[in-house]
């Protein structure tokens, strides 16, 4: 592991000041960054520990949830306000990692875990994300776990977060602060598709710090669900995951729908085309299938992962049937 300096910030301004040197990185729980540093994939020269910054979990009068970036995953998932008003968020967090890792990991760190694949970890493999311009051994390699949507010839890795898939469906907003001031970024615009620059996972500028995530209230009575399909019953990344919230009108037509997918792309995938196609429709199996197919028309499977298209189709149909009241 490369040598680094270490400071612990007590307020956001101090953190931003401390990170204003080349090679500085913010450190949350470290569950991804420390691991990548040990492997020699990440080589920061300075770590700015931001775990003593705000870890608040609060709900304002208009129902908006506010999560300090240093809030631990376990604290968010176990919080009674989150469980009552944002069960989708609790469910997604609880579907991720292990209890030990959820106890360490922070909200900000979950957003900033690297979009990655096994070739990214393997220093003997070519990887454009690790070494820009080096090439990608995953595209022609073992690609069972890789992206089917929004990938590029330069990178086919997936973003592994469960929490972010729920946040994408919930219209969450990421609050950032940096040398040039503060700004808010919708969660769905926070992570990037790889394009020609897969080394950049997010739109954050150098030195920008996540301070909080806010989640607007869901309409009263809206039902939601998170379903994760993986190779073992627990403690594995998603092959495909579906976060959905659905409200039907009195005639049983879709009045409001939020649909996001995990495990399929370089970022949490908000299925906007499928949402638009379902709005105002009776969500029968046929209508849901057509709407999902519309979204999946953009899918470009690799050698080993075409099964994800059918898995996404079936999992989404099952979740929406459950939310619409039919037997799951």
């Amino acid at each position, binding site marked *: 592991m490369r040598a680094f300096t270490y400071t612990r910030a007590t307020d956001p301004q101090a953190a931003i000041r401390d990170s204003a040197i080349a090679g500085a990185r913010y450190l949350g729980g470290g569950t991804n960054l420390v691991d990548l540093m040990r492997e020699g994939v990440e080589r920061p020269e300075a770590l700015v520990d931001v775990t003593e910054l705000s870890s608040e979990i609060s709900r304002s009068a208009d129902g908006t949830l506010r999560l300090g970036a240093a809030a631990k995953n376990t604290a968010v998932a176990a919080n009674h306000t989150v469980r*009552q008003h944002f069960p989708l968020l609790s469910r997604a967090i*609880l*579907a991720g990692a292990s209890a030990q890792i959820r*106890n360490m990991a922070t909200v900000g760190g979950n957003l900033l875990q690297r979009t990655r694949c096994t070739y990214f970890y393997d220093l003997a493999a070519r990887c454009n994300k690790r070494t820009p311009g080096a090439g990608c051994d995953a595209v022609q390699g073992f690609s069972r776990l890789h992206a089917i949507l929004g990938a590029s010839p330069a990178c086919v890795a997936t973003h592994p977060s469960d929490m972010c898939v729920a946040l994408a469906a919930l219209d969450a907003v990421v609050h950032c602060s940096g040398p040039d001031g503060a700004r808010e970024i919708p969660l769905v615009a926070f992570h990037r598709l790889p394009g020609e620059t897969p080394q950049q996972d997010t739109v954050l500028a150098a030195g920008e710090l996540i301070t909080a995530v806010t989640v607007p209230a869901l309409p009263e009575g809206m039902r939601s669900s998170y379903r994760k399909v993986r190779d073992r*019953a627990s403690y594995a990344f998603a092959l495909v995951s579906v976060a959905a919230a659905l409200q039907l009108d009195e005639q049983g037509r879709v009045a409001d729908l939020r649909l996001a997918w995990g495990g399929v792309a370089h970022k949490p995938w908000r299925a906007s085309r499928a949402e638009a196609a379902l709005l105002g429709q009776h969500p029968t199996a046929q209508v849901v299938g057509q709407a999902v197919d519309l979204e999946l028309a953009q899918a470009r499977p690799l050698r080993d992962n075409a099964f994800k298209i059918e898995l996404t189709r079936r999992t989404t149909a099952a979740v929406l049937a459950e939310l619409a009241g039919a037997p799951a």
Partner: protein
Amino acid sequence: MHFIINGAPVSAEVDLRTSLLDLLREHLRLTGTKKGCDQGACGACTVLVDGVRINSCLALAVQYQGRSITTVEGLADAAGLHPLQQAFIAHDGFQCGYCTPGQLCSAVAMKDELARGIPSHVTADLADAHIAATHDELRERMSGNLCRCGAYNGIVDAIRASMEGEPA
């Protein structure tokens, strides 16, 4: 760096790159905590920080300065083994024993998480304040601790027995 380890203050001069796991094993000679995968996948390195379970391999020691750390060496007291350790013996909760320190520390904290009403992936009702320690709940909550001997049934039996206050 200063820590409280198994109740006693400890100071150590170590490189910033030292993991909490390596601090314990290589510098303090507390070799009960095991290095399995060294990448957060197996749970053999599980220790408690202020009573909360974490993977010590994914932690830099410097992040946990001043905190109270409990390792498997800190579970037993002068009166004898921790009840959970007795239960692991009574119920064959191990074969080779390599994962056992992590399993023990993990289970101690897991019982506390259950008592505090923290839900899991298999908890049916998130509103439930009193979550029953069913077989499925215990397996899910212990899924961060792998046992390559496959002693899972004994591990779950031991944990259930200790929770039910069964005499060892």
